[in-house]
């Protein structure tokens, strides 16, 4: 018997959604009710998520589904459903908790915004959409929620619509992810065509279960790659990563939500969810689809880390670091380490939310300054932010032993080292580790150390903003307990096994390697930036390279000159064709129809109507004539009878 929560999983996204609708209907003036409503709904969702977490905790490898028919067309019933397994449960808890922290932080960060209540409505909607993605047991429902996530991101990135850059960034995010979604949708159609179901698990009949996988056979590679297109768009993988840094135009809590709990996590989650399609027919854990995933991930991870080195906007650095970390997760999924990838996703959510909220606190405290070259020396002015940000930075860099990011990253590196496809990704990821430590050190030095380069007085943020930071920092460190190789509880939980404690396993060669690499990255950063001015030392030494990286490898310009130029040309050509060719056809068809109409109306008037009129006139005249006989005079009738009888008699006499 399924626990109560399985059939009522829909409540978890429904609560924030209801809160969002309520807030929208409350109106602009209700500021604190809006925030309270959003936070309350999120707390309720968090409680429900924990309720959903409990049964998966009790039984290793717990999996329960609740399927039902949505609608029927012809003989096909479209079935959707909810799924509860360790992956869902862990994601639910993470999303609701991180969202809650972000919501609380937003009450401080957005306190002066005129559209405060609308902001909370959108935030709740965003969280609801993402929770919907996580609980769905049907690729169709998944896709619906997935698109809702896209819509919510569009609304939030373009929240400050009066800023043209924000509007453009929102549009870019929406359209870029849509490109991936076309592939995703084709993949869904193909999957439905070859397996006849879109449910993930359905007591042996689901698309991810043995029977359906057998039916799909060799087309699984193509289906998996098409679905991967969607993940590439949503999770900002190369070559569709360009929207993610631009999404920084939104308010900082939105960036935190997009980069940590929702949106970008959806892509990685999607690949993890349909992993059986990717790994179908694997030889030594290598399939063509997974190889593509690995290489896309590796390229993304290294490229984004390189670009992050040369960025000056505090949020953009974090944005590229997210892209890089997502690449890392994709690599992990690609080499078969689904659990390792998801564990990194969960840990990353906490420390990336921490970093973004920290950045938000810095921006808030230094009067909406985002350029790290005009910060510096904030260590003493904002002690709480500094301490929590440092924890986030060390988690992200992967400083060993204490910080959650280190353990998960080590796990991933371990997985790539044993991949049978190629040794290259492993070494590239090791390079990525160095780069990550390097650019985070650069950012730390720029923001918190050295002299103050701005005359504005910065101040520490109010408590409503620092408490979420502290909560997330505690989680970032505390999560390590269940991540270490000695007791990899979360990893084993996701795989459906129970973990055992072995202290000896904590010492792995990878621990030393990553410690060495992180140390090298940090040392390099400190060495280069120890006496930092307004110009970047790297820019002085290697201006060409720095320019190349600072301009994001010219990728936006490349797209602008190729894809956009091409589409603009196609649009112009279509317009010309429309005006001169198709218009002519349409006009000709119209004229022909007009002529036919004239002829037809003539025939109507002259022939058909006239004939009918004539018939009617004849009938009328006859009627009038005959009606005169009907005079009512009895004697005339009698006379007629007499004449008639006489005639008949005479006729009879004459004939007989």
């Amino acid at each position, binding site marked *: 018997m399924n626990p109560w929560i399985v059939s009522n999983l829909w409540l978890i996204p429904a609560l924030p959604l209801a809160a969002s609708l309520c807030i929208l209907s409350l109106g602009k003036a209700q500021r604190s009710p809006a925030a309270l409503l959003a936070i309350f709904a999120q707390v309720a969702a968090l409680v429900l998520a924990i309720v959903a977490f409990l049964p998966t905790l009790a039984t290793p490898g717990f999996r329960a589904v609740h399927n039902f028919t949505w609608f029927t067309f012809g003989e096909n019933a479209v079935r959707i459903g909810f799924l509860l397994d360790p992956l869902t449960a862990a994601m639910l808890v993470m999303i609701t908790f991180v969202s809650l922290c972000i919501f609380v932080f937003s009450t401080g960060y957005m306190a002066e915004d005129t559209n405060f209540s609308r902001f909370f409505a959108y935030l709740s909607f965003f969280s609801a959409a993402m929770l919907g993605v996580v609980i769905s047991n049907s690729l169709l429902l998944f896709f619906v929620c997935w698109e809702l996530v896209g819509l919510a991101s569009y609304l939030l990135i373009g929240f400050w619509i009066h800023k043209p850059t924000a509007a453009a960034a929102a549009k870019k995010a929406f359209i870029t992810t849509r490109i991936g979604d076309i592939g995703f949708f084709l993949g869904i159609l193909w999957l439905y065509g070859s397996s006849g179901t879109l449910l993930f698990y359905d007591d042996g009949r689901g698309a991810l279960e043995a029977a359906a996988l057998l039916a799909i056979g060799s087309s699984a590679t193509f289906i998996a790659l098409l679905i991967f297109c969607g993940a590439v768009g949503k999770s900002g993988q190369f070559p569709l990563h360009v929207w993610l840094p631009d999404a920084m135009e939104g308010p900082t809590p939105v960036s935190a939500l997009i980069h940590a709990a929702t949106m970008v996590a959806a892509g990685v989650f999607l690949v993890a969810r349909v992993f059986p399609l990717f790994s179908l027919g694997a030889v030594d854990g290598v399939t063509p689809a997974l190889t593509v995933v690995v290489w896309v991930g590796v390229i993304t991870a290294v490229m984004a880390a390189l670009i992050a080195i040369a960025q000056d906007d505090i949020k953009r650095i974090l944005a590229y670091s997210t892209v890089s970390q997502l690449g890392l997760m994709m690599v992990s999924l690609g080499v078969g380490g689904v659990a390792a990838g998801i564990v990194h996703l969960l840990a990353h959510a906490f420390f990336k939310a921490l970093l973004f909220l920290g950045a938000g606190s810095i921006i808030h405290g230094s009067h909406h300054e985002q350029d790290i070259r005009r910060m510096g020396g904030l260590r003493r002015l904002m002690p709480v932010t500094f301490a929590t940000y440092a924890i986030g930075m060390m988690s992200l860099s992967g400083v060993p032993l204490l910080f959650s990011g280190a353990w998960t990253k080590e796990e991933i590196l371990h997985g790539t080292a044993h991949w049978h496809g190629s040794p290259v990704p492993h070494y590239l990821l090791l390079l990525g580790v160095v780069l990550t430590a390097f650019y985070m050190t650069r950012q730390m030095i720029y923001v918190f150390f050295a002299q103050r380069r701005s005359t504005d007085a910065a101040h520490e943020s109010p408590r409503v903003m620092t408490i979420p930071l502290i909560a997330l920092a505690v989680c970032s460190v505390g999560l390590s307990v269940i991540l270490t190789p000695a007791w990899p509880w979360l990893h084993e939980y996701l795989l459906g096994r129970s973990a055992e404690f072995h202290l000896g396993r904590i010492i792995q060669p990878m621990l030393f390697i990553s410690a060495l690499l992180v140390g090298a990255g940090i040392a390099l950063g400190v060495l280069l930036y120890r006496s930092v001015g307004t110009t970047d030392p790297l820019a002085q030494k290697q201006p060409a390279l720095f320019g190349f990286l600072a301009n994001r490898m010219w990728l936006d310009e490349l797209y602008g000159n190729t894809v956009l130029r091409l589409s603009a040309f196609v649009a112009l050509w279509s317009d010309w064709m429309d005006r001169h060719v198709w218009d002519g056809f349409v006009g000709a068809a119209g004229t022909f129809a007009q002529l036919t109409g004239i002829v037809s109306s003539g025939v109507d008037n002259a022939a058909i109507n006239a004939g009918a009129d004539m018939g009617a006139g004849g009938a009328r005249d006859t009627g009038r004539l005959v009606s005169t006989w009907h005079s*009512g*005079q*009895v*004697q005339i009738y*009698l*006379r007629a009878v*007499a004449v008639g009888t006489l005639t008949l008699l005479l006729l009879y006499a004459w004939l007989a």
Partner: protein
Amino acid sequence: MTPTLSAVLVISAALFCIGLLAALSRRHAIFILIGIEMMLAAAALNFVAFWRFSPEPQQPTGVMVAIFAIAIAAAEAAVGLALVIAVYRHYRTTNVDKFDRGEGS
């Protein structure tokens, strides 16, 4: 002089023609009724004549039909007179030219 069949038939035809003429030309409803009665009488006379000059005049077949016809004609005359009175009450006239409408008002 014994009557012959043709003489009786001539009388009957004359009676019929007189009745027909009355029914067609008189304007007074009661006279029309009288004309109709005369035509009926002519028909009854025909019956009696054909019976009297038939090969078997012993059986009173024809005279029976005539008596029947007279009885029914009496009933019919009563109904006809009643109708005439009803029409008169409604139209305040018995001139058939005036009531050319078969409806109540």
